[in-house]
C-alpha cells in the first residue's frame, strides 16, 4: 500500500547542512502496524511528515496506493488529507473553540459533508468519550483529548493513520490506554504508522523500525527476527 523508496531529507547548505533522513526505504502493507523508534533528532518525525505530505523529501519517492505523495501538488495534497491519510499528533491539536463532537466533525466540514453527527457520536463512543461530546478541549484531560483526536482521524475513513508520538505527553497509565486503543484499531484492520518512544508499542507492532541519525539501523518484522542493516 505504501512504498518509501530511498527517501532523503537535507536541511540547509554548506556547513549548516543537516541530513535529517538518509536513504530511507520501507514498505507498509494494508492493515500493518508500523512502529518507528529512535532517539530525539533521529529523523522520525521528518519521516512521518514526508509520508504524510506535510514536507517534501530532498530525494526519493513516496507512493501511497499508486499515488506519488512526494510529487503531489497543493490540490492533490488536500485530496490526500481528505481521503487517504489522517494524523494523530503528540499535542492533540484540537481546535479550542470547538466541542469534542465538533472537533471530530471538522474533517467532514472541510469536505462539505454536513451530515455526520451520528457517525461522529459513534466514534466518540468507540473511543469511550460518549459522555464528553459537548466538552471543549480545555475541559478534557490529555488522554481524553487524544481520544478525540483519534476519533477525528477515523471520521474520514483514512487508509493510513499517521501518529506522531501520540502518548508522548501522557503518564504511563493513560499512555497504555491510548496504545490499547491503537491496537484495537489495528485489529479492526486500520493501517497505522506510529512514531513512539515507548518500547511497549514495539511489542505489539507488526513492524518496528529504529532510526539513528536519519538512517534505519534496525528493522524487526512481525515474526520477531531482528536484522541489523549496517
Amino acid at each position: 500500500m505504501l512504498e518509501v523508496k530511498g527517501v532523503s531529507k537535507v536541511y540547509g547548505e554548506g556547513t549548516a547542512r543537516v541530513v535529517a533522513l538518509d536513504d530511507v526505504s520501507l514498505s507498509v502493507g494494508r492493515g500493518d502496524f508500523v512502529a518507528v523508534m529512535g532517539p530525539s533528532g533521529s529523523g522520525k518525525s521528518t519521516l512521518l511528515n514526508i509520508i504524510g505530505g506535510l514536507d517534501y523529501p530532498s530525494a526519493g519517492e513516496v507512493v501511497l496506493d499508486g499515488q506519488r505523495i512526494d510529487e503531489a501538488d497543493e490540490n492533490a495534497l488536500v485530496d490526500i488529507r481528505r481521503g487517504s491519510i489522517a494524523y494523530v499528533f503528540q499535542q492533540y491539536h484540537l481546535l479550542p473553540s470547538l466541542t469534542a463532537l465538533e472537533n471530530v466533525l471538522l474533517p467532514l466540514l472541510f469536505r462539505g459533508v454536513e451530515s455526520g453527527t451520528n457517525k461522529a457520536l459513534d466514534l466518540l463512543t468507540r473511543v469511550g468519550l460518549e459522555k464528553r461530546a459537548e466538552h471543549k478541549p480545555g475541559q478534557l484531560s490529555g488522554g481524553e483529548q487524544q481520544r478525540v483526536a483519534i476519533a477525528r482521524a477515523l471520521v474520514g475513513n483514512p487508509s493510513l493513520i499517521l501518529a506522531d508520538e501520540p502518548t508522548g505527553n501522557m503518564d504511563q497509565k493513560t499512555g497504555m490506554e491510548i496504545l490499547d486503543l491503537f491496537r484495537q484499531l489495528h485489529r479492526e484492520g486500520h493501517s497505522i504508522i506510529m512514531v513512539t518512544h515507548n518500547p511497549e508499542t514495539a511489542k505489539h507492532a507488526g513492524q518496528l523500525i529504529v532510526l539513528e541519525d536519519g538512517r534505519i539501523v534496525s528493522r524487526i518484522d512481525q515474526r520477531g527476527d531482528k536484522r541489523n542493516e549496517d
Partner: protein
Amino acid sequence: MRLHHLVAKDVMRRRRRVSYAVLGVVIGTMTVISILTIGHAGESKIYAQLEDYGANLIVIPAISQIDLALGGLDLGALTVGDNYIPAAKVSQVRQITDDMVNEALGIEDERYRYSSSVAPKLYANTRVGDVSIVVVGIDPEEEMRIKTWWRIQEGRYLEESDQGVAGAWVAELLELSAGDRIVLNGVDITITGILRETGSNDDYQIFIPIGTAQRAFDKEGLVSVVDVRALCTACPVEDIADEINMMVAGVRAVAVKQIAMTEMGMMERVNRFMLALAGITLAIGLFGVVNTMITSVHERVRDIGVMRAVGASRSQILRVFIYEAIIVGVLGGIFGYVAGTLLAYGIGPIIFGGTAITHVPRYFGLSLILAIAVAVAATLYPAFRATRVKVADSFRSL
C-alpha cells in the same frame, strides 16, 4: 456544522482580540459618520443662512431707453415699454419657478412640492406733509419669507389692508410710533409697527399691503418688481431666468448670480473637505485593522495548521478569515454608526455654533458598507499569508 459556524465560535472564544479589530474599524467609521453627520447638520445651517440672503431672482419690467440724437445734438432719452408688470404675470413667474425647481429637485408628488417665495412689490412716491417718501405695496406674507432679517422693533407686523409698517429712518423722520395713523395719497393707514434698522433702502420706506397701494396710487393690477427666492443648491436660477424671459412677455428676469454661485461654491468646498477628511481617517483605520489581523493570523498559525492537516484547502482558510472580517465589519459598522452619531452630537454644536445635530438613518447603511469594506480589505493580505502556512512548520514552531 458549516464553516461560518466554526468562525463564529472562534470569534466568540477570541472576543478580546476580535474586539481590538472591531475597535480599529469603529474608529475609522465613527470619524467618517460623525464628519458626515456634522456636515449634514452644517449643510442645513448653511442653507438656513443662505436663505437670509434674500432674493436670488429679480423680475423687472422690460423697459429700454433709446438715446435720441440728431446730428451732434442730444435730444435726451426716450423710454420704451411699461414701467409696471401686470399682476397676472406674477402667477406665471411663480408657476415657471416652481416647476423648474421641483423638476431640479426631482419632486413629482404634488403634496411635497417645494414652493418658492414670490414677492411682488409696487413702488410709489408720495408726500407726507412736506416730506417726500417711498411707499412700497407688498404681499405681507411673501415679503416676510424673503426678508428673513426683518425684525419688528416696536409694535407688530401688518395684517389688515389699512395697516402698514415703517422703516426705522422714515419712522424717525416722521416721528411715527406704533399705532399712529397717517394719510398716504388720500388713504388712511395705521402704522402697526416699526422695523428695526436694516442698513438697506427698507429703512426709508413705508410698507403697506399691495392691494391698498394699487388703489391708493391708481395702479390697479400692476406691480413694479417681483423678488423671487428659489433657493436650493440644485436650483438652476439662471435657467429659470432664461425660461421666464422666454415665456413671459414684457418682463425681464435677472438671476442674482453672485448669490447663486456663492451657494454652490460653498457647499462644494465643504463637501470636498469632508470627503478628504473621511478618506484619511478610513486609511488610518485600515492600517490599524491590518495590524490586528496580522497578529490574529500569527496567533492562529497552529489552528490553521490543524485545519490544513484535517483537509482544509487554501480557499477554505481564506474564507475563514474573510468571514471573520465580515463579522468584524458588521460589528464595527454598527458601533461606528452609533459612536459617530454620538460624537457628532457632542462636537457638532462646537463646530457649527449651536447647530442642532440630527442623526441620519441612511448613514447606517453607509457605515456598514464602509466598515465591512475596510475590514475585508485589511484582512486580504493577512489572510493570504494564512493560506501559505505550512502544516509541518505550524506545529514545529511550538
